[in-house]
């Protein structure tokens, strides 16, 4: 027997794309990311000045209907980070990868939004406490 492996992604059907969004107190304009990972440092959520942050949200856009809605959000004071969730792909004679969701990391836990439209809640930092968050 001969064993071949292909370091590739699984066959998830794309349903939702995700982007991050920051809403601020007062009249400071919201900052919104793109539907695909940023290609410039200044377009990354991690480089946005978070002073006065009211809400941090993950927005999803349906791949077919183009409907846009908030999947999860947390208070600004609880927000830590957004992360893209990715799978490595190297098949068909070229190497690439794709994202399959976005994570909102907050003070007490994580919220994974998957391209299938499902949301998974998890703990971070050795605690099983979960903060107040909103599922829309």
């Amino acid at each position: 027997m001969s064993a071949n492996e292909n370091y590739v992604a699984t066959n998830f059907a794309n349903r939702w794309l995700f982007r991050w969004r920051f809403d601020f107190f007062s009249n400071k304009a919201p900052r919104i990311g793109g539907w695909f990972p940023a290609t410039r440092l200044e377009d990354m959520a991690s480089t946005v000045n978070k002073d006065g942050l009211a809400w941090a949200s993950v927005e999803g856009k349906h791949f077919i209907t183009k409907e846009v809605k908030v999947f999860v959000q947390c208070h600004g004071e609880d927000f830590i980070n957004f992360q893209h969730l990715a799978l490595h792909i190297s098949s068909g004679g070229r190497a690439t990868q794709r994202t399959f969701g976005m994570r909102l990391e907050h003070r007490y836990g994580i919220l994974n939004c998957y391209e299938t439209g499902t949301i998974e809640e998890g703990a971070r930092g050795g605690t099983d406490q979960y903060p107040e968050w909103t599922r829309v």
Partner: protein
Amino acid sequence: MSVTLTVSETITGANASDTLAGGSTGLDLGQTTNGQYAPLTLQSANTGHQDIFLRHDAVVDPITDVKFYIAQFSGVYGGAGTAAGDFTIVGNYGAADTGTTANNGDGLSRGSHIDMSWDVSVASQFGYAREATGQKRIFGKSYSGNTGLSLALAFDMHVDAASYWNGASEVDATTPVTGKIGKSTDTVLGNRGHIRNRFYLHTGETNGGVVQYDTVCSFAYTA
């Protein structure tokens, strides 16, 4: 910024691009026969393995949640059966593995095994005692319910897989963390994930020909 993961057969190499049966590219572990494993150098000495290196080009933060699982082959299938059938076969091999010897001396090992310790000794590599520490995993075998057969049941990259390539040699990361690979200059977390892979066949195997499946690396990076 967007982060690109590279999965290579050498520490500074390009993505694995062996030509596979059917015409796709990936990682060819080679041939094996019943009671042995691939890649094999000398069975009695427990030598022979496939190195797999992971690195990335993130500039802000390390990548996290690095995990591995196998899935149905997604390339152009060129095996002896079907892509779906091969995935089932490999998963079943892992579930049925009752081996106790790293070199398959008892002939009871089967399936795709990974050893997630970059500098494990030849004598110890793929040893079954390493399952208890999480360093060794067999796809399809259950470890507290995790079988490595789906994203939800994926195996975490063990902390001992983290190493640092300083441009001349591979050394220990000073304070590595499970599932994390640091940026290129990160000596603390390390800038490489380095695992080893083998494919085992037990002595009573009746299937022959090429078996094909995907090994998937999932991870998260700062947006």
